[in-house]
């Protein structure tokens, strides 16, 4: 039994302590500490991804210790393809965000970002609910202070809203799991999934709560759905998101959209679907409707926004909606339909990664714009920037086209697989969801048109193009968009065996 996952989880924590001990004025040392730590973590995740036995496909690198024996709570870590994708994403986006801070990097920011990375690593590897929930909720603390970094009253309000929203949603989920514990006496997610597969979980819940036997499973399911739905978020539980993404500094928005939102989707894949496949099948119509509403509503709302960050924020909701569509379609399919379930499930996981990469790149670019414009980021505040900043326009253009799902770039492949699978399973919902694809193209091309095309305004004559440092920050992400767009198997190969285990 190796301890590499524990090591990985706590590397950022050690880095955070290191950074905390550094003098706050030495930005250089702080940046070094942050980058060094995150790059070590990246190297470790990559080596785990390479060591991972893809042919076997199940949970590996397991660590298991008793934690609170009287309550059957264990410290239980392991990783499969799904976890590894998220670990790699976390390890990539965190240094990306640190770099995006540029000169604005403070000691507090480094410490908080590293703490956040620890909670993310913990969430994506934990297999005992209590253990998982601990990291899942703990992430709120650094996230709360990161959103407040801007220091404006609006940022404080947004941070508070974010915190309370997700905390309450967490309670709903916690209550659900307490009921499950009451019925099964375990918090072990793999054991619970095994029970669910044998269709024993629902019976256990009914037996444990005889007075509510008719609807206890449904209530627990809804509690968990709401808890995770806020985090993703699902419309109509999303209203905290535009404020949080907009008021947070751009590098923090990168973390929020790139990583924190993924905790929600991850929860859908790791908790909700394995524990309640039957209920998800039973409630496929409302669930698919929920996904379609999330997709179409957020795209339309993005169309009406006039703030670049808000546009990308709503667009994020839209993109994660496709993940839900794919997952709900998987749950709605008959068991025998392996081809389409595998297609949609692979698409969902790929989309998680792609969205994390692309949306964080978009926020990074918007951060660069804000830095140049003194905080201005209205859709109509600019115009003709391509004239003076062609590299900026070109690279951001690539990220935008990745976001609207242009073939050849990463975004397309995930959406293709999701749509391939979902259309075969739920054609009506999928056809409606295609509206979202179109509307996304409308607002993203409008963004390019207003910001980069047209005559150059006098005030932006001196708008600087990307500096060398900024180019080095974004080019790895852009390069990865091409690589995954052309050769998606690189990533799919990592999690396809896990998908096959997930859908059986």
């Amino acid at each position: 039994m190796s301890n590499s996952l524990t090591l990985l989880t706590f590397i950022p924590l050690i880095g955070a302590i290191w950074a905390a001990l550094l003098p706050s004025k030495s930005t250089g040392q702080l940046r070094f500490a942050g980058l060094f730590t995150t790059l070590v973590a990246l190297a470790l995740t990559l080596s785990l991804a390479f060591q991972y036995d893809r042919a076997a496909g199940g949970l590996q690198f397991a660590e298991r210790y008793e934690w609170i024996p009287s309550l059957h709570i264990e410290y239980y870590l392991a990783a499969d393809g799904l976890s590894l994708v998220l670990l790699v994403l976390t390890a990539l986006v965190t240094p990306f965000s640190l770099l995006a801070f540029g000169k604005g990097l403070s000691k507090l920011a480094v410490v908080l970002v590293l703490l956040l990375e620890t909670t993310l690593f913990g969430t994506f590897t934990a297999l005992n609910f209590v253990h998982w929930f601990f990291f899942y909720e703990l992430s709120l603390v650094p996230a709360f202070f990161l959103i407040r970094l801007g220091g404006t009253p609006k940022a404080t309000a947004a941070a508070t809203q974010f915190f309370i929203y997700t905390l309450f949603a967490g309670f709903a989920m916690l209550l659900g799991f307490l009921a499950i514990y009451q019925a099964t006496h375990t918090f072990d997610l793999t054991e619970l999934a095994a029970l669910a597969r044998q269709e024993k979980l629902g019976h256990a819940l009914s037996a444990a709560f005889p007075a509510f036997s008719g609807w206890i499973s449904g209530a627990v399911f809804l509690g968990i759905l709401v808890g995770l739905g806020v985090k993703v978020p699902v419309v109509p539980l999303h209203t905290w998101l535009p404020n949080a993404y907009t008021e947070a500094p751009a590098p923090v928005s990168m973390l929020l959209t790139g990583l924190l939102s993924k905790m929600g989707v991850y929860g859908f894949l790791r908790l909700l679907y394995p524990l309640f496949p039957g209920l998800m099948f039973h409630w496929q119509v409302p669930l698919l409707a929920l996904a379609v509403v999330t997709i179409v509503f957020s795209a339309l709302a993005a169309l009406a926004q006039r703030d670049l960050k808000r546009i990308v924020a709503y667009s994020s909701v839209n993109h994660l909606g496709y993940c839900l569509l794919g997952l709900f379609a998987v749950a709605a399919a008959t068991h025998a339909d392996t081809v389409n379930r595998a297609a949609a499930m692979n698409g969902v996981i790929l989309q998680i990664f792609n969205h994390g990469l692309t949306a964080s790149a978009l926020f990074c670019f918007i951060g660069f714009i804000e830095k140049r414009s003194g905080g201005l980021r209205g859709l109509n505040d600019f115009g003709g920037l391509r004239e003076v900043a062609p590299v900026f326009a070109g690279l951001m253009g690539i990220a935008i086209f990745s976001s609207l799902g242009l073939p050849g770039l990463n975004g397309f492949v995930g959406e293709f697989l999701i749509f391939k699978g979902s259309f075969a399973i739920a054609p009506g919902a999928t056809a409606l969801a295609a509206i979202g694809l179109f509307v996304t193209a409308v607002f993203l091309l409008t963004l390019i048109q207003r910001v980069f095309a047209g005559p150059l305004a006098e005030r932006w004559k001196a708008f600087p193009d990307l500096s060398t440092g900024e180019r080095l920050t974004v080019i790895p992400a852009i390069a990865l968009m091409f690589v995954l767009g052309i050769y998606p198997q690189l990533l799919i190969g990592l999690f396809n065996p896990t998908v096959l285990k997930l859908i059986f």
Partner: protein
Amino acid sequence: MDFLLIALIPLLPLVAAGLTALLKREQKALSATLVIGAQTVACVLSLWALLLAMCADNGEPGLIHEFVNFPWLTFGHETLKLGLLVDPLSGVMGAMVAFVALLIFIYSHGYMKEDRNYTRFYTFLGLFSGAMLGVVYSNSLLLTFVCWELVGLASYLLIGFWFFKPSAAAAAKKAFLTTRVGDMGLMIGMFWLYKAAGTLLFYDNGAGCLEQAALATMAKTLVGGLALSNIIALLIFCGAAGKSGQFPLHVWLPDAMEGPTPVSALIHAATMVAAGVYLVARVFPIFAATGTHSISLIVVASVGAFTALFAALIAVAQNDIKRILAYSTVSQLGFMMLAAGVGHPGVAMLHLIAHAFFKALLFMGAGSVIHGVHDEQDIREMGGLRRFMPVTFVTYSIGMLALAGFPVLFSGFWSKDAILHAAHLWPVSQLPFYMATAAAFLTAFYMTRQMAYVFFGQYRGHAHPHESPAVMTLPLVILAAAAILMSLPATPAWPAFEEFLKGEAAHFSLEGLTEPGFLQIALTSTAIVFLGIGLGWLIYGRKPLGAVDPIQTAAAPAFRALANRLYIDEIYDATVIRALHGFGSLAAWIDRQILAGIVSAVAALSFFVSAVSNGIDRFVINFGFDNSCNALREYGGAAASCEGGRVQGYLRLIALGTVILLAVIGWLLV
């Protein structure tokens, strides 16, 4: 067959584009060399591929499709493959695309020499060529779709090449979004096809989606009373209609003329806009799975015929030299769709290839004119240019005669006659035939009008017209030759082109010319063309032209409606676009007022509850508690004062108590 070399055809321009993307603005010569060099090799390879398709022989009659399939990704236990395909269809189309693109790449060097972003221009051209050739040689609808979207991207980038012009940026966006509307249909069609056939490969040794087994399944499956093959075909046609500017998705193509003229020639006349027709020809087996009079083909024929006539009408009243040609392109694409719809994809392809040559010629001629009169595009500001630009004039005339369908010498005559002939023989309805004939008449008419305005009469502009340099005129001469030579394999006497696409050997026989119906059609269309040219000359050729069009004087409302493109754009603005933005605002409103409102209400409610409980605490609980405490303390104090500790006090109280007690007892006893 060595498919690595076939793969190089699209890859070379693509890689060259990638390399030039890394170049600096000043490295003009290097970028042009890279892209033109790569395109030259691609062109040679495409001709070789055509030769392979021509010589392919497996000893059996019928079409030979040579293909290679390779895995792209694996999901579950399923491997998704892409593939490359060489057959007569892709051979012909690929050779045309690579050849016309090469000519236009060379021409662009002259046209764009002074442009600041010359380097970037070649990057985008390379991207376009690679993607377009990818569409052509693809053996998988998925790969086609991928390249199809990339072609759309290249088109977007090139229409908006002069991004500082708001009109160009708007036109680029409009083109991308309008075609994407169609692409939504194509995409859904693709997923449905994937579901129905289990593969997106066109040919795969019997397992492909264009092969018998899959076609038979799709033809048999009924969805809502329609054969599934027809539904899928119609969805795919949505994409084809978007790309090929068919009504009602034609609106983007005239606006696309905002791009530099070489772009209009290459993408928006010769190649990309024809991709829709090519796609229909490629997946024609799906359209025809339930027979050549299937509902999907009837729709294609109707849309094509309508578009041909509708766009030709609008072209009559346009004054921008490129817009006239753009509407003419829309109209000619309608002809091609009509040919495919009446069951003759080979005829559609014949017109596609012929049109590619003469329309590229016309656009490049128009570019030469625009260049010569210093960026003027209004034909009313031209006139008499034949004296200043003789080469352009002669080559442009050849293109014009080919487009108008002038008899015998010009390719357009034969290909258009083939379409009219096919439409005439269509048993479903004769209406498309009459619409196409009317469109043919209008074509001759508006092209004569344009010639009269541009090349005849007196020069009305204020520039100093001059002939263009050889780098621009040489491609014109080559294309003019092609516009004439394409007649050779197109005549009914030696229908080599069509037979080749069918996989049959062509025989030379003059009897083809006397085939029943053909002569009749040929004579009718000749009469129509002469009528169109004659009427055009009568109205525009004899008198000096002014600012007001003679037709405008004669029929002002009709002319105005046509000049305003029959208000289609305005109708879209007022309906679709307004509705879209309306829904956007509605969603944002719901978000702000209702959803966020509920959250605020919940927050307000919790504040209210806390305020109430605070109030209860302070004024009810605290008040009662405090009061009772106080009262207790007071009573306690009073009670305590009785227990002063002095004996006299106690005795006094005892005495008082005894007296009261005795009084009470006495009162009770009495």
